[in-house]
């Protein structure tokens, strides 16, 4: 009778459920993350990250998507609809490096992603990596950069031949939003102070507005210390003593320069994680280095940047234990110096580096 196939279905369902439970060590629900491997070394480092997450038994289900720009109705460039739908559903994304085409006719993919999901905050935690020596030790700061307006509005005019004006746009809403995010981040990550970086002595109205909003938001977060500092003073002090800074919040251009400066302090873009926070709870974590087409497919790439961004993602999702486990394993591998990729000063392959981290993660269990 009909109970036979029904019994089989029930049996298959229970087997599935059991397998799901086995995959996650605790009773964490599997969360979906949209994975965008990217170009060049993107696919191999994404595979490395997936392997490490599997070894750590993190409750993450990956959904791979491609984001090559397509021309939508009305002639406007947009990302493929299945990628957008996946992101809207999962709210969390991990992205590898994307190629910026020069004469493809469409804007850079990063810009498109930013506009599509209104990624207003770029967060870069810069922590010195023990084992990867740079002249600066004990760096532990976070740069939070406003990502939608400021000097990068792209509004430029040629007034007369030989005279160009670029417009820097600062709005109340964007400034308030980024300040609120900065203080929330400081509170959630047990950070003691937030410093607003500005040049209000010269750009009185624009940076003045940004500062005023930061001050207003600071009133609601009395547990976090708020200071203001000129951009040039920050640069001067940063290269002499980076330990005096904690969380830095700033408009677009200063953020671009300072976040790269801080990345340089800890060893460059190959080891720096980065996260973009958008409206509606969307967050895309990415590696900010290039696609490195010369070593693509040769198993020589360093997955550290993407891995640390994935750790940032785990922390954002509240899975702190997994995040700490994977980060410890990664730092231990680098500190040990036995299996390092070429850019970190070693001679090993990407797969060997990944395997070592996987082994350490499993040992840490």
């Amino acid at each position, binding site marked *: 009778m009909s109970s036979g196939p029904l019994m089989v279905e029930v049996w298959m369902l229970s087997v599935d459920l059991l397998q799901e439970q086995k995959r996650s060590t605790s009773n964490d629900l599997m969360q979906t993350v949209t994975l965008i491997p990217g170009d060049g070394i993107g696919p191999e480092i994404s595979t490395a990250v997936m392997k490490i997450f599997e070894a750590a038994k993190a409750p993450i289900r990956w959904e791979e998507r491609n984001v090559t720009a397509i021309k939508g109705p009305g002639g406007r460039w947009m990302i493929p609809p299945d990628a957008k739908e996946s992101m809207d559903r999962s709210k969390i994304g991990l992205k590898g490096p994307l190629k910026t085409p020069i004469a493809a006719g469409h804007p850079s993919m990063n810009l498109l992603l930013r506009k599509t999901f209104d990624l207003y905050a770029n967060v870069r935690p810069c922590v010195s990596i023990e084992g990867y020596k740079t002249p600066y030790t004990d760096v532990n700061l976070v740069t939070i950069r406003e990502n939608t307006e400021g000097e990068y509005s792209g509004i430029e005019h040629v007034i007369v031949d*030989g005279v160009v004006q670029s*417009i820097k*746009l600062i709005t109340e809403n964007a400034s308030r939003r980024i300040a609120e995010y900065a203080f929330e981040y400081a509170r959630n990550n047990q950070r003691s102070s937030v410093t607003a970086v500005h040049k209000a002595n*010269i750009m*009185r109205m624009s940076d003045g507005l940004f500062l005023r909003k930061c001050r207003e938001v600071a009133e609601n977060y009395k547990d976090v210390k708020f200071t203001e500092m000129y951009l040039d003073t920050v640069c001067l002090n940063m290269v002499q003593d980076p330990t005096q800074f904690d969380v830095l919040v700033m408009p677009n251009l200063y953020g671009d320069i300072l976040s*790269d400066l801080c990345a*340089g302090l800890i060893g460059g873009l190959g080891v720096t994680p980065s996260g973009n926070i958008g409206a509606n709870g969307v967050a895309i974590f990415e590696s900010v280095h290039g696609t490195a087409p010369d070593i693509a497919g040769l198993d020589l790439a360093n997955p550290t940047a993407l891995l640390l961004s994935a750790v940032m993602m785990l922390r954002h999702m509240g899975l702190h234990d997994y995040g700490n486990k994977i980060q410890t394993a990664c730092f231990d591998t680098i500190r040990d110096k036995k299996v390092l990729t070429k850019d970190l000063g070693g001679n090993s392959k990407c797969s060997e580096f990944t395997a070592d981290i996987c082994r350490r993660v499993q040992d840490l269990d």
Partner: protein
Amino acid sequence: KIKMCSFVRPFLLSVILTSMFSLLRSDPLLPPSTQQVHRDSLVCASQPPPAQYGGRHTVTLIPGDGIGPELANHVRELFRFCCVPVDFEVVNVDSTMASEDDINNAIMAIRRNGVALKGNLETNHNLPPSYKSRNNLLRTTLDLYANVMHCQSLPGVRTRHRNIDIMIIRENTEGEYSSLEHENVPGVVECLKIITRTKSLRIADYAFRTAREKGRTRVTAVHKANIMKLGDGLFLECCKEVASGYPEITFDSMIVDNTTMQLVSRPQQFDVMVMPNLYGNVVSNVCAGLVGGPGLVPGANYGEDYAVFETGTRNTGKSIANTNTANPTAMLLASCLLLDHLKLHAYANMIRRAILSTVTETRLHTADLGGQGSTSEVVQSIMKVKNFTVTF
């Protein structure tokens, strides 16, 4: 007849002695210094010689705020001790006053004398936009278009990076510092960044001319033309145009965020750098931090007709004012640049040698260099170091 003899001989003697003295005073008779290493003088061919009366130069001195007044006093003390033929015309500018009379007086004094030594004037950024930055006003009114900062690693100062020798040439009058802002809609502020072809060509030409005169081999233009395509694109185009006229000098360009990253990892790769105003601010502060801090690097602002010298990173040092802990090196080296500009090279080199030998003495380091010395100790030591005899 006997009376006339007794009168004439001393008179003739005094005339001969005075003329010998004035000949000694004017530098062309003195042998040029063999130590070319730390010479930072650059004379624009088009600049007229500064005011000179009776063999003595008059220089405008604007003490400024914070540590400015005490450092200005040390400069005067040192010049008096070394018998430098410079008289300072002190013009005080009160930066708390809303009226611009003080700064206009200072500008007039600089127009009169042609040269100035200046401390930084504080700008209260909580005041409304009608109150403009006094420093910026001075620079734009006198059209001091080139800000030159030479960052060199000093032997006695311990820093994370060694062998740095970067010359930063920054456009000083336009770019983001145009102070043109408006609020069309409440809550939306627009700030204009102006880049013009004439000024970009001018600063690029200055950079290449300086590189050629100092025997430098490479000029790097710092920009963000991938984002600000028209503005920084125009700046880059002008630099390329000027570079074609200087084939012996290598020209390359670098995006500003990559530049800061390279500066903190491998600063030895840079030689001469030229850039618009805001990036110049960032890069010069990063470089000053790399060689030891704001207390060590002097800065110079050159225009067609005027030159103003100050500390490189333009800090008021409000928190350490009147505590006798400020590092006088930057201001004193700036005064040496001033002397070079006035063509008093022997005095300049003498004082510079004394300053640099004092800086290598670690027990005299001030707090910013990690020591416990006081400003007056440093200045006293500089005065003791060399026998201040003008040899010929």
